[in-house]
């Protein structure tokens, strides 16, 4: 019902125009309850203290590798967690000058637990995923921060976000084989996304995100038995034929990409031969015309 959406949209715009205070209130702390307000003030105080050192590149990276420990305070404040205290995610930090925090992966694993405290619903789903299972086994895997970032976490709909549809393929292929990126890029989905389509399928459209499972798992969205249903998320009907083919098939003379490979070869040579013959024909005509002029 397009007219319903249109009506709702118009009503919303009118409301925002007539009552400008509505949007102002939503952004300020005035309307929040006392406890939340106190928390926000506390967070601001804590963050100010932390960022006094951690917000300055020179001050913090002196004896640390790379830019470890440095936080871009402007980016952090603009992120989804900008009004949360540093200590919410880094609870083990002790207030002394050189608090020995674990670095890199150890820190990421530690923070992962902090994420799960608030995002407990996602944590349950993640625990059953391929990534989550490896995490529980204590193996190297994708942690929250690997996909979502750390101090720069943004909503999925934000074009700057690492999980924004146009950025998500890059985020997955940080770890996953380059082969998948290449075959995806060749596909129609990949082309559409590279041209800026927000409706075409990215990795997560088919594979899922927090619940992701390997194709061997019968519950996986890309398991042979579930492929048709997964395609039908966008392509209307769950036809069995959707599964009779291989996504990420490489264009080689043998293997699942062979039909496409030989089709390409056929048309490439058809084009080369046809165009060559036609160009020769044109050249012959022009040559004869030139001869005719000469003879005049």
């Amino acid at each position, binding site marked *: 019902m397009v007219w319903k959406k249109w009506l709702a949209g118009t009503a919303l715009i009118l409301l925002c125009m007539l009552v400008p205070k509505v949007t102002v209130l939503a952004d300020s702390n005035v309307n929040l309850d006392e406890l939340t307000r106190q928390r926000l003030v506390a967070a601001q105080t804590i963050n100010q203290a932390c960022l006094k050192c951690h917000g300055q590149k020179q001050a913090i990276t002196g004896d640390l590798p790379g830019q470890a420990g440095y936080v871009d305070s402007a980016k952090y404040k603009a992120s989804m967690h900008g009004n949360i205290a540093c200590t919410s995610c880094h609870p083990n930090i002790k207030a002394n000058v050189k608090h020995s925090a674990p670095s890199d992966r150890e820190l990421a694993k530690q923070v992962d637990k902090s994420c799960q405290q608030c995002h407990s619903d996602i944590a349950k789903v993640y625990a059953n995923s391929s990534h989550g299972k490896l995490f529980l086994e204590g193996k190297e895997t994708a942690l929250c921060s690997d996909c979502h970032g750390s101090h720069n976490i943004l909503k999925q709909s934000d074009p700057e976000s690492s999980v924004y549809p146009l950025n998500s393929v890059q985020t997955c292929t940080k770890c996953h084989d380059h082969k998948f990126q290449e075959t995806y890029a060749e596909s*129609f989905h990949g082309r*559409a996304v590279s041209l800026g389509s927000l409706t075409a399928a990215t990795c997560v459209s088919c594979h899922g995100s927090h619940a992701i499972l390997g194709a061997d798992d019968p519950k996986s969205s890309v398991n042979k038995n579930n492929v048709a249903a997964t395609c039908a998320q966008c392509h209307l009907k769950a036809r069995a034929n959707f599964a*009779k*083919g291989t996504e990420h098939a490489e264009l080689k003379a043998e293997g699942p990409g062979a*039909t496409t490979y030989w*089709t390409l070869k056929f048309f490439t040579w058809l084009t080369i031969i046809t*165009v060559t013959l036609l160009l020769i024909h044109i050249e*012959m005509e022009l040559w*004869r015309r030139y001869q005719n002029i000469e003879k005049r």
Partner: protein
Amino acid sequence: MAEGPKKEYERFNIHQRIQHVMMFTSFMVCTFTGLPIKYAYTGWGSRLAALFGGADTDLKIHLTGAAVMLASCVYHLFWLIYMLSRKKTRSWATLPGPKDFKDLADNLAYLLGLSKKQANWERYTYKEKFDYWAVFWGIFMIGGSGLMMWFPDVATKYVPRWFIDASRAAHSDEAVLAIVVIFFWHFYNVHFSPTFFPMNKLWYTGKMSRELMLHEHPAELARLEGGTVAQVDSFKVNTTALDSLDGIPGEKISHKS
């Protein structure tokens, strides 16, 4: 209609002309919205797609063009059935025959300077028949594969997914073939050829003057006029100047009938 040099013969009727206009407008639309998808990873590809409003809008315009092209195809098929079903209009002139091979041999001999006489062209030369059947083949290849990609949930009722994957390769590669043939071959024949530059106006008038018929389709003219006509070497005439009938620099045409 005036007799003599100004006499004109109709070659394309209104249906054929509408079909051709539908075909070439949609062809241009599909070319310029389709190439950015094939060359999505080039700078010009993404800029061209952006010009059409980005990937999603580009595709919508492409599909609109496709709908017009398929409509022209359906129109043509219905018109063919109608034309062939009536004795008065029935014609098999577009079908290739042994004369085309003779014409090809004659023409090649002429072009190579081995013969002084041009082929005795009938209603459609082998070049024109090639163009016509190339579009016929192209419409089935590109239109068929395009429909499978447009409606994959319908296509998978009948064919497996790997078939649709392969048809995508066929779609864009056959399209590049069509684009190159149109922009080089067809444009040479109807635009850049010295006989017709800047264009052969037949696509909207539908008519060809008797003079041009003498050069381009002498055998047909003889058949239509129930006699013989003196064939004139079309390469020796600047026919663009014929339109204004103010003489041709260098050479005069003689026509007997």
